[in-house]
Structure formats: structure tokens, C-alpha cells
């Protein structure tokens, strides 16, 4: 089921730091200042996961914080949404292959799925740290208020025909000179 059908009213959000450097957390606090004011969408930070609809995760999911993250996610009533804020949460950041982190939310979701707690609704908000506008945009994308700009792209580099011909000519030249070299070697032996 899509997210907008699940939550038609105000969204209460629980914020959890899982080993972030505090930059993302400061930007999250920026959201509830009068300048950005997310309460106009009905979004409110709450102190307990039991009151929340959605969890904001910052940081690369430290191994030490993992039990607490799982407890918090389990405590949120169904249906729930997980929002990964920042590069650390989205892909592990510079700690993606560290021994002491799980390497971001994608690995956390894999881990939870293996242990029987699938989370279908995830929103990724990259940035280091993301602008408060980027987080508002992330929520707007999740709730289909705006169209998602970021899509998977494959671009192909084209080489000019002259270039291809030049390379082919050079390789032909090298093969010829090699054969000449071999013939020369045979001539020296005999």
C-alpha cells in the first residue's frame, strides 16, 4: 500500500540518532523553527516511538546502537515509515565498510527482513547534511505532493568513428611489426 493512503492525517515523527555526527540532527531541529515550520504539514517531533508514525534515522547504524534501533522500530505501531536522513543513513557514508557499523539503512532493512520484521516504506534523503528543504522534499516525495526528480540513469559515452578507425589502424600496424620482428628472430636463429 502506498504511503499517502496509509497516513491521511498529521504525521508524528520520532527522531533517533544511531551514531551520527550531529549535523543531520541540527538540520532536523531546523525543521521545527518558524523559518521552515513543518507543523504546517502536521509534522511533529514526539518523544516516544509509541506515539510516532514514522522514524527518522540519522547515522550509519552503529553496532552498539543496533539493539536500541530495533527496539524503537518494533515499538512504533503499524503501519510505519522509515526515513533515512543523510549520507550515513542512506549508504553508510565514509563508514560504509567499517567493522563497527552496519553500513546504513539498506543493510539494516536486510538484517530486519532476515529476522522477520520487514519494512516496506522507506524514504532516502541523501546529503551531508541534507538541507532542511531537502528533508521537506523527501516527505513531499513520500506523500506524493511532488514528483520524484531523482531516477536511475544510464548514460553511454560515444566515441567518434575517426577515433575507432585510428585505434584499429594502430593495432593493425602493431600486429604487422610484431610479425616482422618474429621473422627477423627466425632469420637470426637460422
Amino acid at each position, binding site marked *: 500500500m502506498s504511503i499517502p493512503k496509509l497516513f491521511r492525517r498529521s504525521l508524528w515523527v520520532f527522531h533517533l540518532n544511531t551514531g551520527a555526527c550531529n549535523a543531520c540532527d541540527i538540520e532536523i531541529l531546523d525543521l521545527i523553527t*518558524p*523559518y*521552515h*515550520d513543518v507543523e*504546517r504539514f502536521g509534522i511533529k517531533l514526539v518523544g516516544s516511538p509509541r506515539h510516532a508514525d514514522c522514524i527518522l534515522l540519522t547515522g550509519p547504524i552503529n553496532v552498539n546502537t543496533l539493539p536500541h534501533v530495533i527496539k524503537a522500530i518494533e515499538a512504533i505501531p503499524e503501519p510505519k515509515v522509515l526515513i533515512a536522513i543523510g*549520507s550515513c543513513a*542512506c*549508504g*553508510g*557514508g*565514509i563508514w*560504509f*565498510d567499517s567493522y563497527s557499523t552496519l553500513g*546504513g539503512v*539498506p543493510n539494516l532493512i536486510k538484517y530486519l527482513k532476515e529476522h522477520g520484521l520487514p519494512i516496506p516504506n*522507506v*524514504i*532516502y*534523503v*541523501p*546529503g*551531508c547534511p*541534507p*538541507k532542511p*528543504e*531537502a*528533508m*521537506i*522534499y523527501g516527505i*513531499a*516525495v*513520500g506523500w506524493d*505532493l*511532488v514528483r*520524484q*526528480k*531523482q*531516477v*536511475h*540513469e*544510464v*548514460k*553511454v*559515452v*560515444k*566515441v567518434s568513428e575517426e*577515433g*575507432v578507425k*585510428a*585505434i584499429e589502424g*594502430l*593495432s593493425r*600496424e*602493431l*600486429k604487422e*611489426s*610484431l610479425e616482422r*620482428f618474429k621473422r627477423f*628472430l627466425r632469420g*637470426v636463429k637460422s
Partner: protein
Amino acid sequence: MSSVGRLDILKKALGIGVVTRKYPYVRVEPPEGFRGKPIIDPDKCLGCGACAEACPPKAISTEDSQEEGARYVKIFYGRCIFCGMCADVCPANAIELSKEFELASKERNDLYLVIKVPMVKCSVCGKYFTTAPLLLKSLENVPEHLRPIMTVCPECKSKLSSRFTSFARRVGS
């Protein structure tokens, strides 16, 4: 007790007015010098992999496919820290940090940008070893009599040169 009364605060608040920005409905321009989403220009990219070497979180990676004869340069925006090192080291100035910051997505797969660069076969062993744009670029700086040997992969080149030097020594003695 402060000396400012409630009415004074109200007066001040009314004087300042509403400061809230209507963001998702009104476009916000990032400030000057803002580093946003790095974009690779496929017309300029050589596929050399300097950006992948320089990237601190290894958000950019390269992968050679011998079957398809192509090198894939992948950017994963989910791990990018927007430092701009890739744009600094790029020899062709193909990477530019745009002002785009609206990268949020619902799928992890949407956060990838893949550049496919065609590769060149080694003229001795027939394996793909370097990209065509990079070879063409480096040919410009090589004297003409050495250009054919540029189409040989490093391993074959070392074997060739060892044979050649031994041959030269034998002739000399």
C-alpha cells in the same frame, strides 16, 4: 521578572511578520557556492577512474565488463558527501557539482547514475584493458613511432619488451 511586557512582545512579533518559507510549493535557490549533486558529462568523460580513486566514501566505483567490452562508472548518491574531490581531480573537467539538492527517493536503486564507457582490446592477447576515449587522449602526447605499442595491455607490453631487450643483448654480444 523581565521589564518587557506581553503587549510589547506582541507588537514586535507583528512588526516582523511571517518569516515561514512556502518551500515545496515555491522554489528555493541554494546560496552561492553550494555543492549539490555531482553530475558526470558523458560527452567529456574518459572513464579513467580518477574520481573513483579520489572519492573519500567510495561513492564512485568503476567496474570492467569483459563480456560487454565496457567500463561502468557508477555514482551512488546515497553515499556521496558532496566534497567535490571528484570534480577537482577529473582530468577532462567532466564532473560538475550542480546546485541540485532534491535527491530524496523511495527506492535505493534510483540513487545511481551509471556511465558506460566503451573499451579497447589489447592487440596481442585480445582482452579489454583501457577505455577508448582515454587511449585517444593519451595518444596525443606520445611520439608517432611509439603509438602502435599503446594498443597493448601492460602485461603483454612487459613480455614484449623483455623479449625485445634479450634479443638486443644477444645481438650485441
